[in-house]
């Protein structure tokens, strides 16, 4: 019975899993050996590699942000290339809000590393217009799963305040995903639950992460989410 997400058919899904695995290893290992450029050069398929960078969004910056390492200029240029080659769609209004949140997280992460991405070709214009979170807990959890690229450590203070009022709903969403055996969604919601884990760690979080690391041991995307969550939990508050 499949309980983890297999790469989708095509070239991009496997490339995303490869990049997620490389990011996980970079987060787990000590040192500053990870280079996005080296990974993409070794991966062979340039187009699929850039697509993977675009799909994972701000998460490609987690080894640098969470380990306090400088972002090499070549890696920043590759992220810019990924944004330019795979621009945000202009003709899909239903997805506009999703793209805006993702792009805002990417721009914020790059800014934290000293890179100004405001003028990059292909980025969705980031506007401060914010949609209120869904009032019911199931739609809230579904939305947060899709917005995992904006989850900690890339969550701004306003969202953290909103989540603090919805802690129970977030935990319900995590339990629901675990019961559905949707490991990737559960890992993403566990990552969201680390939004203030340094001061108020939900009791369910640690066993949920352990469970997901076991059932998702073969799924690079699940392990990336759990690894980011663990790194975020041990990171001193900004």
């Amino acid at each position: 019975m499949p309980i983890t997400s297999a790469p989708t058919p095509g070239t991009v899904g496997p490339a995303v899993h490869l990049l997620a695995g490389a990011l996980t290893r970079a987060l787990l290992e000590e040192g500053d050996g990870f280079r996005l450029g080296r990974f993409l050069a070794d991966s062979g398929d340039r187009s699929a590699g850039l697509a993977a960078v675009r799909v994972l969004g701000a998460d490609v910056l987690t080894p640098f942000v969470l380990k306090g390492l400088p972002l090499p200029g070549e890696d920043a240029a590759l992220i810019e290339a990924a944004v330019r080659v795979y621009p945000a769609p202009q003709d899909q209004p239903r997805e506009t809000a999703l793209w805006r949140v993702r792009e805002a997280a990417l721009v914020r992460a790059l800014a934290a590393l000293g890179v100004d991405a405001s003028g990059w070709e292909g980025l969705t214009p980031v506007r401060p217009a914010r949609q209120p979170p869904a009032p019911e807990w199931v739609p809230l959890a579904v939305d947060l799963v899709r917005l995992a690229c904006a989850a900690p450590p890339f969550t701004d203070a306003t969202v953290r305040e909103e989540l603090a009022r919805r802690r129970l709903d977030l935990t319900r969403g995590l339990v629901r995903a675990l019961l559905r055996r949707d490991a990737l969604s559960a890992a993403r919601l566990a990552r969201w639950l680390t939004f203030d884990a340094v001061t108020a760690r939900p009791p369910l979080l640690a066993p949920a992460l352990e469970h997901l690391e076991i059932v998702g041991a073969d799924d690079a995307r699940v392990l990336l989410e759990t690894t980011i969550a663990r790194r975020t939990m041990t990171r001193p508050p900004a």
Partner: protein
Amino acid sequence: MSVRDVPAFAHVVPTAQERIEVQALLTEGEAPSSHGPGSERGAALVLLLLATLLSADPDRDEPVEDAFGGVVQNLACAALF
């Protein structure tokens, strides 16, 4: 450094299929179907488990007089006296 300084990647032209894949992966949400309890597949497994636990002859090893909590025996005694 700008994207022009990464020449191998500066002129990548993705296929239409790759664009579709990126869009699909970017907007993917939770798994469309559940495999846990309460799901269609989960319910089928529960039914299968129940079916294996059911016996065609549940009273096979049970003494006749105790089959209905002794009611048959009591009725027989009542008829005699």
